[in-house]
């Protein structure tokens, strides 16, 4: 009887041993870093280092609806010098559909800038620089004339000529001649009534490479181009000269004239005419394009011949409206060009898993087509889109502007160009420093891995400004730009959130953990020093 009882009891009890709730202590968490996977970040500065207070940010364009800040809101603003945009994950770019939108920076006293942004598939991050200009205080690469002239019966009484000054090392200028009797119209085409004309003409020193960053749109490529026959095009510009002319009568912006006005743009003798494969000569035909900031569209105006007067090359042309103007060689192609032209892979095994912030300059015939900031990794890729077929020079600069690599790339009319560059190790390179950056939230008992963000640094005793250290991904980061036993300040910027961590010393403590993390995140597990930081930013991520 007892045997029977125990047999029965055993058979029932064994069924009930697996009782623990399988979901105990498990949360269904949303990973914020998986929401915004494509982003574009801008470092925004004033061209002469002044404050950008009052600068407003708006976006427009075909995919503007899918663009948010990194916190998922439509509140775009510059925070700690950084302006960030993220793509709604449901509208991420695909192979045939890149994401396109425009960033418009404007404000009282600022020259409005409209920067087209294109994000293609696999181009997860891009970091760009924008230097906004003030109307009355241009950058050192530019020159401006601000003058006021009297009007008689709402018109110029006699022929009026004005030019930008030759200063800041500039040897070229933009001149404008208004014939007598010229009246001034607003955007609606109505003659503006007023007693004086305010003129602002901005020209750039093309011998100064910084000038190219002020080219309308921020680079010499554009996908918003209207050809001479009205067709929609993409273009690569090789400017010989460019500038902006603005006029106001009674505070109202002048958009056109009742009589054609003459514009003369001086051309640097060193300008390389790619069409002739020689320096510019008298008689060369150069294109004239206008750019309307309000729409961001470049428009083919005319072809004009280079003249030479008093030994100076000039390009004169007439116009009846005011916008930005450029003259030079322009290559066009049918739009849209959806594939990226350049996929640059960097080889730098000496980095040992570390990031190396670099500036990549893409040039053609001496013109700086694009300048891109990049957090370079060994076997990492930089995607450069919108570059039309041609021969380009790639220059990679490291810390303090040191040239790390230069090479030539030929972009053909076919699809992607994939290039691999090997970056040689510098003679002196810092130790492998592993960093762990987590979010420590008082209301949660554990650390959270933050979304990807850019990290900046400066030496603790320095009076300089924060410099880019690299892109932190998955809460860990490796660098070789820091020195052992030195103390640094760090700045993390993510969307509208900025976290500054002061006085962190590069130490050799906890190297076992550092190496485990370093190896686990694609590094070599060979960290020589370690920094741990808790960023303590816990709003809903």
């Amino acid at each position, binding site marked *: 009887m007892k045997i029977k009882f125990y047999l029965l009891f055993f058979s*029932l009890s064994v069924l009930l041993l697996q009782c623990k709730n399988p979901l105990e202590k498990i949360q269904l*968490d949303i990973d914020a870093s998986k929401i915004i996977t494509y982003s574009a970040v801008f470092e925004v500065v004033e061209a002469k280092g002044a404050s950008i207070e009052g600068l407003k940010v708006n976006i427009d364009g075909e995919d503007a609806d899918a663009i948010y800040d990194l916190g998922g*809101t439509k509140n775009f603003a510059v925070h700690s010098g950084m302006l960030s945009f993220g793509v709604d994950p449901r509208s991420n770019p695909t192979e045939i559909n890149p994401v396109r939108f425009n960033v418009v920076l404007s404000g009282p006293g600022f020259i409005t800038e409209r920067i087209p942004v294109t994000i293609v598939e696999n181009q997860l991050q891009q970091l760009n620089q924008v230097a906004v200009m003030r109307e009355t205080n241009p950058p050192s690469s530019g020159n401006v004339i601000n003058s006021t002239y009297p009007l008689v019966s709402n018109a110029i009484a006699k022929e009026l000529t004005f030019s930008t000054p030759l200063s800041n090392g500039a040897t070229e200028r933009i001149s404008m001649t208004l014939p007598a009797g010229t009246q001034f119209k607003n955007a609606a085409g109505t003659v503006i009534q007023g007693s004086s004309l305010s003129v602002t003409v901005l020209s750039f020193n093309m011998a100064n490479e910084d000038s190219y960053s002020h080219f309308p749109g921020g680079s010499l490529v554009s996908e918003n181009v209207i050809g001479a026959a009205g067709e929609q095009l993409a273009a690569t510009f090789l400017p010989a000269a460019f500038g902006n002319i603005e006029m106001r009568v009674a505070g109202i912006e002048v958009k056109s004239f009742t009589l054609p006005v003459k514009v003369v743009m001086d051309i640097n003798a060193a300008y390389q005419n790619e069409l002739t494969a020689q320096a510019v000569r008298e008689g060369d035909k150069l294109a004239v394009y206008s750019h309307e900031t309000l729409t961001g569209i470049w428009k083919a105006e005319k072809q004009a011949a280079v003249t030479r007067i008093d030994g100076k090359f000039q390009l004169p042309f007439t116009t009846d409206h005011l916008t930005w103007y450029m003259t030079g060689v322009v290559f066009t192609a049918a739009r849209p060009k959806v594939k990226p032209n350049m996929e640059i892979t960097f080889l730098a095994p000496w980095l040992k898993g570390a990031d190396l912030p670099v500036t990549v300059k893409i040039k053609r015939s001496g013109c700086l087509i694009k300048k891109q900031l990049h957090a370079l990794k060994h076997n990492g890729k930089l995607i450069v889109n919108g570059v039309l077929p041609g021969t380009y020079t790639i220059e990679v600069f490291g810390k303090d502007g040191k040239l790390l690599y230069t090479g030539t790339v030929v972009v053909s009319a076919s699809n992607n160009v994939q290039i691999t560059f090997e970056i040689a190790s510098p003679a002196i390179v810092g130790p492998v420093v592993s960093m762990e950056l987590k979010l420590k939230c008082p209301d949660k008992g554990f650390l959270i891995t933050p979304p990807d963000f850019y990290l900046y640094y400066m030496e603790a005793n320095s009076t300089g400004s924060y410099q880019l250290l690299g892109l932190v991904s998955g809460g860990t980061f490796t660098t070789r730009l820091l020195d052992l036993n030195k103390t640094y300040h760090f700045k993390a910027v993510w969307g509208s959130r900025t976290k500054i961590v002061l006085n962190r010393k590069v130490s050799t403590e906890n190297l076992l953990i550092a190496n485990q993390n370093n190896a686990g995140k694609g590094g070599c597990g060979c960290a020589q020093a370690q920094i741990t930081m808790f960023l303590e930013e816990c709003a809903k991520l």
Partner: protein
Amino acid sequence: MYHKSKKQTKDQILPFFRDSDFLAGIRLRNFLSNRFRSGHWRLIVLIILCHFCFLSGINHAFAQDIDVFSEKKNNVQPLFTPSIAAHIGTQGLGIDLNIPASERLNFRFGGSFLPLKYATVRNFGGENASMKMNARFNNVHAIADVHPFARSANLLSKMVFSAGAGYFYTASGDFRFQPTGDYSYGELTFSGPEVGEMQAKMNWEGFAPFAGLGLNSLKLNQRLNMDLGLGTYRFRSPSVSLIGTRLISSSATDEAQFQQNVSDYRWLPVLQFGLNYNFTFKKQ
């Protein structure tokens, strides 16, 4: 003769029924009261009901069997005969080939297939999520049945003790959890399917020992008889993975916690009914 048999049946069965079940009930209640959550009470009641059911079935079958048995008391019918059996139970549907080695020893070779599907809504830290489960337990097994009470004159004559092993070439569970509501990130709102799923997978593939007991050869007719079995397989701790898709985070910490939570999920209870076809029966 028949009434006498029935009285004997009652005298023999009822003490077992009343005594052991009553005591088993008390012991179980005490055992369980300090340990198990209410959800498991439903399982307990189900098992007890099954216990009552199969005892009732036994009573019915055994009543007839006793009749024959008492008549042929001195001519013991072999419990084990070469036969093919189909079974259904908690290890699924399957087929066994019974090959007796002796009067007291039988070998069973067979396989079972168990597909499971289930859906419900669970709560994750205050958030509701739909849960869909797909599980499969397919095995081939080899089991030895021992008949120690061959000469007994009661229910024990049908009782066997089984031991063996199964190879589970498929033994896995796939659980998918998806938030049922919307999730907001800033001004972005995502529906449950857009948020994604947490996919929890458990795997027990491999060999698993088996132990159990049962009642064999409950005769239905000359060629057909019924087996009732109760036992369990014991697996190794399952290997698990916990993956978040789309926006759901995949956390090594959560996976380790999940592994810990299910580390004791190692038992597959077997309660099954088999129908045997005796292909060596000869009419006398």
